[in-house]
């Protein structure tokens, strides 16, 4: 199709103007891009400084119907301080994490300390099993950082950890079920009973028998693996007789039918806790994938999960705050 020469000329002028404009537009875009990272940083920093009271944290935990998601940091902020150390707890408080998960073990002389492994080999400059060491001798050791270098930080006792957390952050005591009599005494002494969460893999009857006297003083959460053939029966027994503050579910595949009941469970008064730690907890919607793309966490929200235990508290908090799901 041949167009009129005059029209062609006009087209050319129009085109050149367009090119000029797009040229200027592109260079201004470049500037915008360069400014962006700073702005993002400011937003994150101001969001992190909002303090939340322990009473708010407790009532949020008790309320299974609100949209706020509770962030639980696995072994404290182990990236920036030794795992299960007092500074690792303090970092969580500063970040605005709601709950810190720590591991309790008993020493040779019946004292309670915070240590993940059965032995102290990986995380301290000593060797051997926790239960073969007295508290005094453990206190002569120091913790190692994440690449195995010794620090100046000591192994904390449960008492020290609870005093650090008192009034500031909820505490999940892992590995404490079998030694809870002693844990209870320490929590009572430090005045932190209302901040403590205990979990167990047992059915309601066994829990009532073994743990019954504590059920009204501390938060207890049943743990259920959705691949367990008895999963639905265990769940129903709790829902019919004693609705807990929350259930922790392990979800090896994200196609398991029981996931569809999470909304009903929340309506009945229990929160739903799922770990984002590694793939077998959450059908592959795990923290390491969220590092590359944080919309991986959408799956938790879409499936009515309102407590998430993570190894990436900073990334999860950023995600939740952007979506108005966390203070």
């Amino acid at each position, binding site marked *: 199709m041949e167009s009129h020469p005059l029209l062609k*000329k006009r087209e050319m002028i129009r*085109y*050149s103007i367009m090119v000029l404009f797009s040229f200027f537009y592109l260079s201004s875009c470049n500037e915008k891009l360069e400014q962006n990272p700073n702005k993002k940083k400011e937003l994150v920093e101001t969001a992190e400084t909002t303090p939340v009271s322990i009473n708010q944290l407790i009532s949020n935990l008790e309320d299974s119907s609100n949209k706020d998601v509770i962030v639980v940091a696995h072994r404290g902020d182990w990236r*920036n301080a030794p795992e299960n150390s007092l500074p690792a707890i303090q970092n969580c408080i500063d970040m605005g994490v709601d709950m810190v998960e720590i591991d309790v073990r008993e020493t040779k002389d019946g004292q309670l300390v915070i240590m993940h492994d059965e032995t102290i080999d990986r995380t301290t400059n000593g060797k051997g099993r926790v239960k073969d060491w007295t508290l005094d001798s453990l206190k002569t050791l120091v913790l190692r950082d994440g*690449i195995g270098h010794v620090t100046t930080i000591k192994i904390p006792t449960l008492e020290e950890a609870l005093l650090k957390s008192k009034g500031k952050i909820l505490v999940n005591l892992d590995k404490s079920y079998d030694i809870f009599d002693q844990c209870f005494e320490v929590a009572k002494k430090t005045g932190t009973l209302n901040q403590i969460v205990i979990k167990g893999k047992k059915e309601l009857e066994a829990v009532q028998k073994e743990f019954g006297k504590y059920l009204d003083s501390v938060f207890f959460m049943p743990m259920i693996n959705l691949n367990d053939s008895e999963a639905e029966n265990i769940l129903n027994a709790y829902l019919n007789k004693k609705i807990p503050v929350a259930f922790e579910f392990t979800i090896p595949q994200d196609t398991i039918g029981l996931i569809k009941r999470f909304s009903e469970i929340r309506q009945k008064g229990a929160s739903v806790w799922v770990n984002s730690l590694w793939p077998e907890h959450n059908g592959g919607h795990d923290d390491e994938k969220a590092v590359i793309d944080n919309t991986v966490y959408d799956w938790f929200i879409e499936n009515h999960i309102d407590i998430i235990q993570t190894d990436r508290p900073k990334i999860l908090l950023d995600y939740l705050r952007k979506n108005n799901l966390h203070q």
Partner: protein
Amino acid sequence: MKTYFKTCILLFIIGISNLLQAQSNSGLEKSRANIILDHLKHPSKNYVLAVSHRGNWRYAPENSLQAIQSCIDLGVDIVEIDVRLTKDGHLVLMHDKTVDRTTNGKGKVSDFTLEEIKKLRLKNACGVQYSMQQVPTLEEVMLLAKDKIMINLDKVEGETVREAYGVLQKTATVDQAIFKGRDSVEFMKNKYGKLMDSIIYMPILIDNTKNPEKYVDDYNKELSPIAYEVTFPTEDSNNFKLISKLNKMGITVLNIALWDALVAGHTDEMKLLNGADTSWGWLVQHGANGIMTDRPEELLDYLREKGLHN
């Protein structure tokens, strides 16, 4: 017709200017790695190099590609990595002699073939093995780092310099890697000959360096190194006194803020306890042109706040 001609010229000019703009964005401007090398060659009071120990291991497993990518994203200048040889002669990243601490496998690196070691997965800093990150080869690292960041090679000294140089040549990154070692210039020249003139070599002054003055003089005469790694257990140490001398000669001084005996206590940990001015700030005041750290994100924040980094 006249207007048509004018439009053509206008378009031509726009075309040329776009082309120039595109060129200045890519080809003509120096790469980030080249700018870092300039800082290393010409130390100034206005810039301090941030060197990350084993990559940003707080973010991803130590000595992993993800840990190095994180350093690139943060704006780190140099990332220090550890390189070891597999049974079948490939250079891979691993700090310890064995894979026990950092992977889900067991045994010496030198007993694994590359294929076998690639089947392992790196653990994160709390010992959990779900990172999905593999043990990287030096070649993969140099390709990732190319044009973006400089690499400081540890554990190659006196052993695998030749093998490492082969990888650098293959990936065209010879001017992006810094070798280092504690041996005398005489020893290194005897062992590697002319290869020493082709690589960037950073001699290390450690606590038990015999006659540090002579060590430095010999290196300066034979190899003219652009940088020294200087450690000092106390402020009385002879190594510490040499820092101002190196400063005057315009040679880069790298300090290692990892633990007490390397920097007379002015460590990353002191930063946490007493503030950055007492640790990193003190080192800069006393002549550091670069600082190796386990806290790259915080070091960069501090240096930028002080106008010592871009």
